[in-house]
């Protein structure tokens, strides 16, 4: 997947939207095949995708079960008090499982083929039209970029503070949900205090290097829209049209 991150983000959401067009066997098969094609392109093992679905398995099954027992219509097959299973219910819950699987997998395709950095650049670029609504997009983008830059630093910092408090006898894994959450307070306070100091330092350093919020800036990184992106776009148009036609059958 060597596409422009913008195309990838659009493609991902486009797919999520067209998943709702699927209402019969053919459309589901078509979506499934297309997804398999993308998985093949991504050159990432199927196991990785299964990892994405696994943690949500129980939500999927529970939702499908509710769908199965409570839907009406079609041939009744089994009935007990208010619970009943109908042929339509079975089909609908199978489609529902597919819908979950498709949506989760396409989102995994995006994350495994794109670095966070590219994603952020893509988001920034997709936000650009908002500047016509007087939204300070370039400042938002700067915030996103600083946040991404400091995520690893903050992870390290939390690790160190937690180690230090553990060495002072703190036990982070004891107690119920609320007690455990409260035990994180001695980690959070030093973290916020040092982040505030960090903000102070960074503000000074950025000012010294000529940063003025809202002032025009040039860009070092620029995204390029390639021919491949056009082809991908076209593929999606074809896929969408095919789905609309097939759902009539």
């Amino acid at each position, binding site marked *: 997947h060597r596409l422009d991150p913008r195309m990838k983000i659009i493609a991902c959401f486009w797919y999520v939207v067209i998943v709702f067009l699927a209402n019969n066997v053919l459309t589901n098969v078509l979506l499934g095949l297309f997804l398999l094609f993308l998985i093949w392109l991504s050159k990432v093992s199927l196991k990785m995708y299964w990892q994405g679905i696994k943690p949500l398995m129980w939500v999927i099954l*529970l939702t499908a079960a509710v769908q199965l027992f409570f839907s009406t219509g079609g041939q009744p097959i089994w009935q007990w008090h208010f619970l009943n299973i109908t042929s339509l219910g079975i089909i609908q819950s199978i489609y529902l499982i597919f819908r979950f699987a498709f949506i989760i997998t396409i989102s995994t395709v995006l994350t495994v083929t794109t670095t966070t950095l590219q994603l952020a650049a893509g988001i920034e670029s997709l936000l650009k039209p908002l500047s016509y609504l007087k939204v300070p997009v370039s400042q938002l983008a700067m915030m996103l970029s600083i946040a991404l830059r400091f995520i690893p630093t903050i992870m390290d910092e939390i690790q160190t503070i937690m180690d230090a408090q553990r060495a002072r006898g703190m036990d982070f894994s004891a107690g119920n949900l609320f007690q455990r*959450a409260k035990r994180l307070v001695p980690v959070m306070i030093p973290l916020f205090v040092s982040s*505030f100091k*960090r903000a102070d330092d960074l503000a000074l350093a950025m000012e010294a290097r000529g940063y003025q919020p809202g002032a025009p800036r040039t860009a070092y990184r620029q995204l390029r829209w390639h021919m491949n992106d056009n082809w991908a776009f076209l593929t999606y148009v074809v896929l969408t049209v095919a789905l609309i036609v097939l759902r009539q059958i």
Partner: protein
Amino acid sequence: MNNQQKGLRSFIFAALLLAITVVFGRIFIIPIPWTHGNVNLCDAGIFIAAMLLGPAYGGIVGGFGGLLLDLISGFTQYAPFSLIAHGLEGIISGWLYRKTSSKAGHWLALALGTVVMVAAYFVADTIMYKIAAGLLGIGTNLLQGIVGAVVAMLVVRSLKQRIKF
């Protein structure tokens, strides 16, 4: 320090809170006994941002924190919904928090922020899947919001004396 410099500092502090919110969502994950689910503390980060920096930055930290968290964790399908759900959470709690100085009022601000977030996810799940999935999400989302609010209140109480704007 002049006003412009203070503005820049708040702006960068907000960016760091955004990073913190994402990290909280990734590493402060507490499993809930009796279910297979867990809650994370990203809401604590959002509430703290909303309380310290107000509705605008609260909304940005919430919205983009939720968005980035979903992108990094591989829940891309939720990303646009998180932008709205957590964004509204930050805006509403930040806005109401500034309206009052009473303790009850502050709790109410966070409570309403939580309710809006939970409602937004309910709508999202219902649109994407079925109403059943939406109902299933209410429990964990609500719990996560409440835990986040409690932690945020504790942290902000002592931070207020130390962080001067």
